[in-house]
């Protein structure tokens, strides 16, 4: 690097961009204007760059200047940063260090993962912020850090000795770091179609996100032991898996109109299924509907709390799905449910199944995509009913009833759905609904079904079968999480 102090072999294995940047600042002590002149970007852009996550779009372009400045190869760059799309919610927002590694002036992005609590090399507990004053050290390229490179910006103490920053020795065997980084890279690069993250997961500590354990299970790639995944939500939640069977290559030309009809048919089938499961449902529903409209003041017929809850949940569910204007609609017979008359919209695009493929350019045929859409839709309406059960339970307990639309994006019980290929390249559908929140509300859960369809044409048949097996709201004995089969024909339990 002409005119700048920078080692020939600068990058140690998996060394973070933050560490490299700090070493560069320490070695060259540039002023703010020096840096602006060198990187050739506006100051406000430079000093807002993340030094932990590789970013996308314009930010990626800006980080590229930094990559060139530090002479990082593409591989070194990937190892120096975390994939924003894969682990953004799993990272620590301020710097975390291993004290032992700091004696080597070393930091790796793996330390920023909340799932990694101990140094994979030395085994020591990772510490947040400055090891001396405990104050936060930002992960971005702050201009004030220019005055104290490789030191705490608050107490100004150097994080490593000068001679060590100068020579930057290797930290020894780094295969554990490599394992973690490789696993996370696999997560980031795994081609998949997925629904939006679990809403319930946003309230729990991010380290407890059940998405990674589900990916680990569905992708059949166990995380290294040093990654502490919380698999408890997976065990407590309901998990469902279905396989498309052998791959097909023919194109299924199905119009949007057909899809609407199929969704409507799916919904009706599910509704009929629920009605069959709820005792005296028509009598109860009639009573609730009249009460809600204020037409009839007669008391609600005595019944069990569970029956009341289930019946009112069905009212809420139909209200959400059918887009009623008032309770009179309950008596109207809908001959056809179209997008125009139905209030509920399935977020296909957000599920990663829009016309341009999945979030990670999920490579599936049109038939496979349709099969996934059916399953995503089915799981979505299950989530709505589970939400309706929760709300109904609260209303029955309080005695204050009201009609409401249960928006799918806010639903606490919306499942996390995933489309993925198994090792035999067969399309799989996985769905996880967290146990938390639905516990005690008699959640609907999966039951064993038989004769699920095989590939291609049979995938059309798989939808009603799936619907048939998903709901059993009032039978706690059937509440254990059970998955359907991997090959679509014989359901199996998930361990």
């Amino acid at each position: 690097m002409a005119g700048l102090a920078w080692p020939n072999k600068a990058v140690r294995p998996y060394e973070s961009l933050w560490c490299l940047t700090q070493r560069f600042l320490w070695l060259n002590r540039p002023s703010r204007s020096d840096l602006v002149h060198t990187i050739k970007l506006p100051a406000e852009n430079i000093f807002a760059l993340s030094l932990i996550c590789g970013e996308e779009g314009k930010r990626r372009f800006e980080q590229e200047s930094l990559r060139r400045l530090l002479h990082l190869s593409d591989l070194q760059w990937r190892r120096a940063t975390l994939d924003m799309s894969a682990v953004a919610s799993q990272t620590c927002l301020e710097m975390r260090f291993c004290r032992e590694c700091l004696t080597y002036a070393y930091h790796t992005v793996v330390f920023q993962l909340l799932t990694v609590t101990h140094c994979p090399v030395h085994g020591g507990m990772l510490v947040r912020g400055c090891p001396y004053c405990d104050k936060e050290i930002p992960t971005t390229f702050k201009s004030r850090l220019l005055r104290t490179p490789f030191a705490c910006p608050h107490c100004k103490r150097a994080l490593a000795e000068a001679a060590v920053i100068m020579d930057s020795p290797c930290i020894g065997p780094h295969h554990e770091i490599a394992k973690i980084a490789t696993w996370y890279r696999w997560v980031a690069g795994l081609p998949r179609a997925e629904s939006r993250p679990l809403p319930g997961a946003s309230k729990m500590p991010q380290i407890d996100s059940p998405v990674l354990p589900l990916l680990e299970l569905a992708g059949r790639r166990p995380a290294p032991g040093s990654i502490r995944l919380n698999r408890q939500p997976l065990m407590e939640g309901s998990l469902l898996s279905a396989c498309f069977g052998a791959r097909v290559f023919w194109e299924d030309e199905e119009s949007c109109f057909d899809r609407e009809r199929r969704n409507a048919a799916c919904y009706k089938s599910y509704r009929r299924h629920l009605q069959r499961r709820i005792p005296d449902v028509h009598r109860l529903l009639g009573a609730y509907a009249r009460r809600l409209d204020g037409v009839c003041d007669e008391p609600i017929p005595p019944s069990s709390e569970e029956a009341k809850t289930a019946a009112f949940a069905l009212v809420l569910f139909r209200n959400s799905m059918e887009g009623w204007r008032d309770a009179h609609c309950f008596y109207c017979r809908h001959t056809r449910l179209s997008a125009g008359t139905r209030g509920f919209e399935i977020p296909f695009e957000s599920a990663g199944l829009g016309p341009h493929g999945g979030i990670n350019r999920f490579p599936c045929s049109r038939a496979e995509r349709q099969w996934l859409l059916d399953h995503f839709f089915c799981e979505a309406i299950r989530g709505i009913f589970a939400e309706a059960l929760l709300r109904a339970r609260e209303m029955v307990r309080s005695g204050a009833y009201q009609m409401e639309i249960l928006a799918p994006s806010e639903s606490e019980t919306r499942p996390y759905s995933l489309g993925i290929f198994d090792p035999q390249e067969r399309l799989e559908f996985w769905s996880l609904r967290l146990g938390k929140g639905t516990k005690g509300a008699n959640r609907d859960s999966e039951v064993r079904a038989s004769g699920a369809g095989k590939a291609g044409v049979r995938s059309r048949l798989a939808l009603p079968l799936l619907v048939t097996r998903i709901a059993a709201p009032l039978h706690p004995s059937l509440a254990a999480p059970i998955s359907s089969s991997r090959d679509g024909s014989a359901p199996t339990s998930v361990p």
Partner: protein
Amino acid sequence: MNLIYQLPESLDHPLVRGQYALYTPPIEEFIATVCEWIDSRVTGGYIYGVSRLGKSRAVRFWVERRLSEKYHGQLPFFRMVYKRHDRFSEFELLQELLEASRHRYGKSKNRNIMLDRLARFYAMRAKNAGGNHVVLMIDEAQDMRDPEYRTICNLQNALDSLGYQLTVISVGSHELTYQHEVFIQTGDIHLIARFMVRDAPFRGIRNADELRFVLDGYDADTEWPEQSGISYTHYFFPHAFEGGFRIAKYSRELWSIFAEMGPHSPGYKLDVPMEHIAKTVEGIFRNFSDDRMVEEELTQGDLAGEVEKTAYRRHMRAISLIPSSARGR
């Protein structure tokens, strides 16, 4: 007038532009001395000599090249020409050092930052070269005083704390020897112990054989254009050169002229400055045509006339007034 001089491309010739330096026996001795100091990891030494001997040319054109050959590129070498200022400024000195080192960030508002920057840059160069030793050569060092040396001392300490060694070689006129005396008298012994551990004179050309060696350089060891195989003598006298003309042939006559025109005080030993040899040769190349050299030889009068034009006599008279201890003879 040599007609070659009038060709447009000749204006780019290193001899015309004065951008060349011949390898001479004094330069060889100078480099051998420097290498010995480097091998001994001396913290600092100085090389002195009266002006016009070719010290700066040696520093500028030969030292880095020869050190690179000897140490196989594993010894970072930095060179600075010290600029005298009315008032000492550490900022200016550090900035000049950074600029001389070709550091991309030459300026700062904080001298500590500049010192850190410089020390770390030197250290990194040494590390990248696979060693822990750096050489800094300061030309025109006769103008440096104790504050300047104290700043260099800080630089040396900063490098030392990083585990790297800095050898500072000051090159300057005979006044450097006076500076040594001043440090002794003012009690700055630590500066002497750091930067004046060793000293060596830089001498001029001392006999006809050495002069022949130098003139041979024009005939055989120079080349322009690059990779052409054409020496400077060949370039300016193409036909004469092919006919056997060599400037080295006149080394004896030239030496006798230098000796004749030089000081004759008792005990004075002649050191002919390279400047006057080079100017004499350049004068011959400029003023005599190729045709003339084909037809006839240079006369004693021609040579004496060219030497006279270099103001050799006046310069040597001035030098002869300098005490022999300061001249290194």
